[in-house]
């Protein structure tokens, strides 16, 4: 059908408007997308221009965008190369970092939610553990590294432990708050239908606390990504953190800038993924 219709015929058909509503949704569909995409695009362009201008002088210490492109072109265009050893594309470095984060964060999520549920339901656990957690959570991630290196005597588990210990606190605290804040209305409903014990926990407490739990997970994944970069600078091996440190040692400023861009984009993606998972898992709950 479509192929038989000659192209010019489409235009008069649109003008004579046999379906006057057909044109309307198309225009209104494109406009909001443009309104979303255009402002950040313009700002990025302006910032790159400013950067080019600021870094072009004879005394500039940092490379301008044009030099970054010239120096690190193969790094930007081919993230998948692997020349053995540490000479790999950014994809492999990011993958190694993401694997550590995945393991450490998964452990923190499981342990954090369980401990949070315990603290939320038991006054004794709350009173006993909360002060300790409030102190421990302020310890900076890297301060744990020497201790974990001493305990594990290996780089990989130490890095994973740093991720774990960094991201677990917001998960514990938010889960506990969520459990404590189950609205009295829901508790009354559960009381009237005699929902008790594990059933009360699964059908009322957990769904009611889910938005809080996901807030904790979202903060936790952000902190994990912050911590892994710093930890990898110290422990070495494959990983985006060590890649940046290595580039600094060999004065490849352009490589650092490319790596930072990737770090930012991956961190943003991680945040979105957890937020989306949370929105899916708690659909309806936060809207009421």
């Amino acid at each position, binding site marked *: 059908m479509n192929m038989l219709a000659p192209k010019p015929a489409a235009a008069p058909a649109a003008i004579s408007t046999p379906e006057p509503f057909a044109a309307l949704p198309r225009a209104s569909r494109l406009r909001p997308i443009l309104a979303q995409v255009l402002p950040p695009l313009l700002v990025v362009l302006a910032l790159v221009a400013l950067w080019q201008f600021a870094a072009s002088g004879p005394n500039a210490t940092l490379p301008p965008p044009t030099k970054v492109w010239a120096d690190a072109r193969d790094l930007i265009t081919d993230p998948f190369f692997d020349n053995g050893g540490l000479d790999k594309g950014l994809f492999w470095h990011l993958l190694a970092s993401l694997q550590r984060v995945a393991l450490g964060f998964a452990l923190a999520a499981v342990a954090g939610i369980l401990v949070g549920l315990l603290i939320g339901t038991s006054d004794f656990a709350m009173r006993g553990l909360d002060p300790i957690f409030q102190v421990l959570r302020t310890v900076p991630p890297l301060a744990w590294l020497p201790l974990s290196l001493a305990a594990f005597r290996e780089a990989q588990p130490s890095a994973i432990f740093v991720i774990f210990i960094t991201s677990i606190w917001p998960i514990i605290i938010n889960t506990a708050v969520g459990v404590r804040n189950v609205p009295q*209305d*829901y508790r*009354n*409903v559960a*009381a*009237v*239908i*005699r*929902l008790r014990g594990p*059933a009360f926990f699964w*059908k*009322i407490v957990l*769904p*009611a606390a*889910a938005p809080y739990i996901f807030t904790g997970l979202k903060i936790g994944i952000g902190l994990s990504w912050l911590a892994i970069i710093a930890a990898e600078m110290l422990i070495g091996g494959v990983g985006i953190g060590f890649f940046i440190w290595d580039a600094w040692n060999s004065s490849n400023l352009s490589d650092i800038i490319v790596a930072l861009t990737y770090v930012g984009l991956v961190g943003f993606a991680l945040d979105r993924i957890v937020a989306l998972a949370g929105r899916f898992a*708690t*659909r*309806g*709950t936060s*809207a*009421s």
Partner: protein
Amino acid sequence: MDRFLEISQLSVAFPKAPVPVLREIDLQIARGEYVSVIGHSGCGKSTLLNVIAGLLPATAGGVVLEGREIAGPGPDRAVVFQNHSLLPWLTCYENVKLAVDQTLSKAMSRAERHDWVLENLALVRMTQAKDKRPSEISGGMKQRIGIARALSMKPKVLLLDEPFGALDALTRAHLQDQVMEIHASRGTTVVMITHDVDEAVLLSDRIVMLTNGPNARIGEILEVDLPRPRDRLALAADPRFVAARTSVLEFLHARHANPALAAA
């Protein structure tokens, strides 16, 4: 008189308050009766309902249902909460199903429970919205699901806590008519808390008027001897309706005017 639900010498005091909220309430309610409790805000009507529901303990005296003193909440006294209290993560069907599964799992098979949920949703005319979540439906629809959930527990007494308070006048009238129909068809005993005089007169067999709190008592009990089924349009000009309405208004505004409003 048939003593189906009996409240005797009931006093309720909250731990830190010097004066009890309710004092020496005595009330007998017959099977199938529709009783409204009316009073100014803060007089303790919701407290009374919560004690009957078992959500609050009595300080002195107690409540006996079918010869058994109530201790704690249970599905034999289903509550329709003022703010609907639907679980937002469940669909309308699932909200009712949770109550049915929890309270009738021994009496009914899985298939029977499914049909029973649908029957109750149909009773409040919400079949079409059964797969929606509470956030996707209007306030009146939420309250209808709340009523369906309460009725689905096959309660001996249905407790309504200002069920239509948050609704607009038209939705409220519509739901009042539905509750009257359900009361007629199922014959459930109903205790309703309200502050709406017209609503109390239209729906009730008896209206219990509370004096101002704290230390609230039953000031007066009015028998509403209007024939059922009742029609709001026909009743509006009926002298018996007008007389009942006047007598409640007179109690609330002349003899027991709201102290908070009087001070203002």
